[in-house]
């Protein structure tokens, strides 16, 4: 039994086949029953009519011999077995005496016949030792049952007729069964093939090949499943690629400072350095690169924390203008150093519910970028409220970002100019971290830019409603 039920296809096949067979058997018996019923009723009616016509020959009184002869003659010509009986013994006339004799008609039948009603018989008759269908017509002389005309057909004859029908039925049923089982098998195969394909595809995916695509175009549940499967595998593929890129990026980003540190430390150890000044210079460089690595690892740690959904913000009501102002304070020397101008217009009434350190980190990351890519001109910061949101626009007049890169700029380690190294000191994670943090504050971060004109980073955060 397990052999039969260990696959869905077999189960479905079994179900379909069983349904077909049950339908055929059921319809066979039903139609046979109807056929027989209609046929039997028809025959019964004709027997009754025949018997009643014959009974018209009886003129009353004791049964005359010529009537017997007529009936005998008729019997010899008719397919129906017909006989006439006048023996009172056969007609159960002695019944109250309980005679040990199997009479042709019983007590109830005699009563019916005495009332002038014909009696119908269907089934086994001991007298004839076979199954019959018969009709008994009373020959009444007033209230005397002078005799009966018994007409019957052996049921075997009837089943002979139904036999032809049964053969036809059997052949038709066989053909129907074969055709429908073949069709059913095909249907089951068609239904289960996508599932098998999916199983193979899933095995393929589990072995690390994410490039599978199921070519199933049906719109039913299986089609939907296949579609979901395709979507899933392509998502896995994308994620896999991103992970690979990420690893490549991380190792690439680390390699530069590490080679610096290794090179300068080698130089220091091999006593190649002549002067103290040069040695200090080398040490400074090693220190700078170590710092960069520290920042990079710190950012990576932040990012992984942010992505793992374990990150907890310590939210509190913050006067945003104050916070931005404090953050900008640190940048003023650098801005002056680069010869840039700083403008800001901050709405002092805006209060948000946020994590002070994180919001400051966001501002710093964006300011770092602006400062890094702006050589001349100005950096302006605006804070204002539109409806329930406060908007922070940090606008610079830097090199800008080409349009085709705008969509990807927030990705980790994404660089507009692939050839550029990180000599500028950025980790390539700042915007990614900023966006994550803004999202944790139920906010939004948008980058708008035009090449050689400047970049605007717009942060929208929900304002804390002060009742």
């Amino acid at each position, binding site marked *: 039994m397990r052999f039969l039920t260990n696959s869905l296809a077999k189960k479905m096949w079994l179900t379909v086949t069983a349904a077909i067979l049950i339908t055929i058997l059921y319809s066979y018996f039903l139609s046979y029953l109807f056929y027989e019923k209609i046929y039997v009723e028809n025959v019964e009616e004709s027997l009754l009519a025949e018997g009643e016509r014959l009974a018209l020959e009886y003129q009353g009184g004791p049964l005359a011999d010529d009537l017997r002869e007529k009936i005998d003659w008729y019997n010899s010509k008719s397919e129906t077995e017909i006989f006439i009986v006048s023996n*009172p013994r056969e007609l159960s006339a002695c019944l109250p005496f309980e005679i040990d004799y199997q009479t042709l008609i019983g007590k109830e039948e005699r009563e019916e016949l*005495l009332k002038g009603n014909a009696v119908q018989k269907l089934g086994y008759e001991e007298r004839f030792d076979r199954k019959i269908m018969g009709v008994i017509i009373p020959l009444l002389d007033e209230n005397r049952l002078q005799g009966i005309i018994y007409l019957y057909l052996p049921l075997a004859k009837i089943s002979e007729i139904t036999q032809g029908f049964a053969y036809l039925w059997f052949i038709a049923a066989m053909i129907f069964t074969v055709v429908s089982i073949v069709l059913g098998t095909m249907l089951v195969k068609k239904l289960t093939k996508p599932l098998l394909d999916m199983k193979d595809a899933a095995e393929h995916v589990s072995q690390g090949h994410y490039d599978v695509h199921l070519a199933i175009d049906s719109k039913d549940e299986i089609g939907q499943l296949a579609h979901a499967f395709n979507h899933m595998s392509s998502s896995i593929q994308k994620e896999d690629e991103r992970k690979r890129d990420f690893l490549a990026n991380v190792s690439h980003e680390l390699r530069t400072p590490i080679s610096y540190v290794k090179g300068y430390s080698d130089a220091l150890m091999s006593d190649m350095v002549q002067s103290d000044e040069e040695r200090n210079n080398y040490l400074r460089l090693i220190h700078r690169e170590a710092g960069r690595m520290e920042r990079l690892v710190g950012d990576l740690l932040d990012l992984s924390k942010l992505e793992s959904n374990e990150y907890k913000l310590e939210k509190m009501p913050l006067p945003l203008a104050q916070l931005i102002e404090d953050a900008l304070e640190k940048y003023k020397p650098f801005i002056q150093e680069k010869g840039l101008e700083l403008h800001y217009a901050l709405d002092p009434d805006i209060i948000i519910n946020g994590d002070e350190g994180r919001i400051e980190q966001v501002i710093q990351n964006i300011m770092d970028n602006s400062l890094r890519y702006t050589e001349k001109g100005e950096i302006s910061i605006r804070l204002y409220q539109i409806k329930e949101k406060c908007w922070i626009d940090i606008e610079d007049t830097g090199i800008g970002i080409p349009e085709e890169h705008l969509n990807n700029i927030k990705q980790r380690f994404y660089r507009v100019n692939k050839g550029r190294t990180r000599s500028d000191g950025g980790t390539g994670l700042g915007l990614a971290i900023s966006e994550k943090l803004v999202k944790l504050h139920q906010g939004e971060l948008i980058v708008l830019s035009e090449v050689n004109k400047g970049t605007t980073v717009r942060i929208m955060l929900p304002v804390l409603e002060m009742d």
Partner: protein
Amino acid sequence: MFKKYWFFGLILITILLSSCTEKRQPSIPEDISFAATVNIKDMTVSFVDLKKMALAEEWKMEKPYTGALILPDRDAILFYGNQLETADLYSLKEGKKIGSWETGTGIVNGKLLADKTGVALVDQDLNKIRFFNIEGKELKQIEAESNPLTILESRKAKKLFVLSFNHEKLAVIDLQTKEKTDEFITHPSAAGAWLNEESNELWIGGHGEGIEIEQDIHVYDSETGDLKKTIPAPSMPINFLEKDNHVYVLSHGSNMLYKIKESGELAASVSIAANPFEMAFAEGKLLVAGYDSNDVHILDPENLKSLKTIKVGEGPFKMVLRERMK
């Protein structure tokens, strides 16, 4: 408080008590003579007033009685039936059950003996003839052949002849000693008999065996059991009565009534009723009950002319008489 309800209480008690008693049947006055038919198809008893030649009363019975006999007090009627555990005694005048005889099932025939001191009942379950006194006390059982049915009493010889229905045997019982004294071989399916005490002739009819229909009356010597002759009386002669040196024979297979001289010559015949089983003489008339026609025909025994036909219940199988005291 009780005063208020005593009347209703009385009614209630009356209803309760009356529901315990047997159903009352219409009373049959003491002074009428009747022929009563026990109708087995609809379980009724029809009383035909012989003087008025009309149906007097009909009793609806609760049990399938197949026969009856009237006890010497002319009021008690004993009903028996093959399937019944008891034979039940009814008072005609009161129209209610007055007692039961513990007979057990199988009683198919009964006869009040000529000396009017006892009753012989034919028991097909035990295959015995059972003698009871008229108080219902069983006196003796005598072994009979299987399926005893017809019994015939010889007043002169004080003998009881018992015909076995399917064993081709006739048993002779001495009524004084109540012992079986003789046994003769008869023809198959014998039923109905008449004893000619003068000539010691025993006329026995029958239904016939198997598909064969009995066409003749078999005349046996009542002393020796020898078959003396047969008299044709088609078909199925099963009832005999004698009056004025003529024997009236009823053949139910052909619905014929024959009037035959004691010598065996046919005097007259008539086709009558439908499937008649029972016949009786009363008030100088001949009564024939048609089992299928559900009627009683009254005939003039002289010329067998039908005087009247009276409808009775369905399936009159047994007829008992109560005639005026002479």
